[in-house]
């Protein structure tokens, strides 16, 4: 069909214009439902909040809402959110890469790799409320690990100031889905490291360290950094785990926004929009950087 119309286009120069125009309009109709869905339920609601962030209660343009974000409680919420997201992203990236590298690169038994990937698929989705329960049963005040440490090693975890309902508690919990996500992203990237590169560098007399420093890491870094950014956004937008774990005792930005949606705790609807706008801005920048870096990283994997 296409060949025919192309042949016609060459043979009869006058004909193709209307033919092409009709396929064009037809073609657009095919994606209209999807585009309508995306506009109605993804783009418009987001734009509604973004526009609202720049309006006052009467609908006039204002920057006051964004300026109001500078009040101490909101700044603190953003800061704790950023700290937890950055820490869990970096630690998740390091541990995830190490585990992925261990499974992919060093001739460990063959069953290990599919097992690891399946488990990572499960664990990366095992977030939200049940994850909070699991960690309460593990590291909570009556948790198994807390109990074992105290009984057999005489080490009272909670006397060191540790608290599951705190910065480190939440970070350790988030790592439960961050590390598997990193493993899932980094495994294909590590597979892309060609055996020949290692052999070539060995023939040229490079040590293992030099191979990693001058060959492998420069190839991997876009994937590494990109994946870290994705982990960051993943943690930054998380609500359920933190909410189930800490109630509203830990003041992170998603929990503040949750309370704002429930009952306008900021006493200013448009300030709520500004809070959401700040979140979109932060995850938008980090995801944009991820997509850009991933396209750079994929050049080597082809």
């Amino acid at each position, binding site marked *: *069909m*296409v060949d025919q119309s192309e042949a016609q286009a060459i043979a009869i120069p006058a004909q193709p214009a209307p033919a092409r125009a009709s*396929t064009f309009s*037809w*073609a657009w109709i095919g*994606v209209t*439902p*999807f585009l309508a*869905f*995306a506009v109605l*339920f*993804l*783009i*418009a*609601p*987001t734009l509604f*909040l973004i526009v609202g962030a720049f309006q006052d209660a009467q609908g006039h343009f204002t920057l006051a809402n964004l300026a109001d974000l500078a009040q101490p409680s909101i700044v603190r919420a953003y800061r704790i959110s950023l700290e937890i997201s950055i820490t869990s992203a970096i630690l998740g990236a390091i*541990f995830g890469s*190490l*585990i992925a*590298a*261990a*499974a992919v*690169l*060093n001739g*460990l038994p063959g069953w*290990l790799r599919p097992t690891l990937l*399946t488990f990572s698929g499960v*664990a990366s*989705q*095992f977030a*939200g*409320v*049940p994850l909070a*329960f*699991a960690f*309460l*049963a*593990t590291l909570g005040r*009556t*948790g*198994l690990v807390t109990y074992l440490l105290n009984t057999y090693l005489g080490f009272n975890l909670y006397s060191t100031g540790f608290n599951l309902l705190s910065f480190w508690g939440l970070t350790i919990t988030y*790592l439960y889905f961050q*590390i*598997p996500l990193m493993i899932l992203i980094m495994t294909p990237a590590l597979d892309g490291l060609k055996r020949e590169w290692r052999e070539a560098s060995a023939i040229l007399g490079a040590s293992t360290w030099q191979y990693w420093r001058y060959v492998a890491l420069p190839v991997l870094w876009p994937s590494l950094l990109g994946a870290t950014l994705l982990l960051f956004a993943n943690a*930054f*937008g998380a*609500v*359920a785990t933190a909410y*189930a774990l800490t109630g509203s005792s830990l003041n992170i930005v998603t929990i503040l*926004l*949750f309370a704002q*949606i429930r009952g306008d705790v900021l006493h200013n609807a448009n300030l*709520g929009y500004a809070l*959401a706008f700040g979140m*979109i801005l932060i*995850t*938008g920048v980090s*995801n944009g950087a991820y*997509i850009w870096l991933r396209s750079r990283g994929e050049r080597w994997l082809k």
Partner: protein
Amino acid sequence: MKSSKVGPWLAIILGALYFIVPLIATFEFSLRMKRGQYSFEAYRIVLADPQFRATFLFSTIVALAAIVVGALLVVPTAYWVQLRLRRLRPLIEFITLLPLVIPAIVIVFGYIRMYNSSSILPLTSTAAGTNVLLTIGYVTLALPYMYRAVDTGLRAIDVRVLTEAAQSLGAGWGRILFRVIFPNVRVAVLSGAFLTFAIVIGEFTLASLLNRPAFGPYLQLMGANRAYEPSALAIIAFAVTWACMGLIQLVGRGARGATPVR
């Protein structure tokens, strides 16, 4: 050579410990309900709880609805882009990635403000309308995964040849889509479906903010009020997630040996 394997093994073992210990701890905790002995009492109580059954059923139905709507939305679009609108691919892919960029809590915030009782489309003013909105929200959350699965599935078959063959036999667009394209990407749709199910079944944020009686808010409520049941629920939720991921692998493996349909 042997000594160089110590590091990798250490990484694997420490990683395994970190991931298995919480599961063991949760399981152990869930058995502790009766004083002085291990029992499945917490599971018995949870499974007999009418609230558990009602919320789990509700979330299952919403998940199935989200899967059907998601598949009907994604498959024709991905097919059409592959067949006719290749230059639109970057735009469509960008849109499908947006739910990873915009946090779920922000999306639902937008819904609540845009579709409230004073808007043109007052979805949140009735329970049925809110259920529709919740389903749509889940379609949105699952969109990146569903689209990627289907797109990969479509790349593996020759969409153009299948379409032209069907057309030359006199099939219309509906018949091509549902009798030719859908059967050929059913494995991709199924893996997208199981992932959607895993995401939706325990989802908390949307269900809670839209005030629907779903499994996620029920979990949170149990966590706030009970001691041992939450651990049993966590184990059940983990088993459901594991089943979904296992089914994805099973379906995928079956596909490799199977011959393409029609």
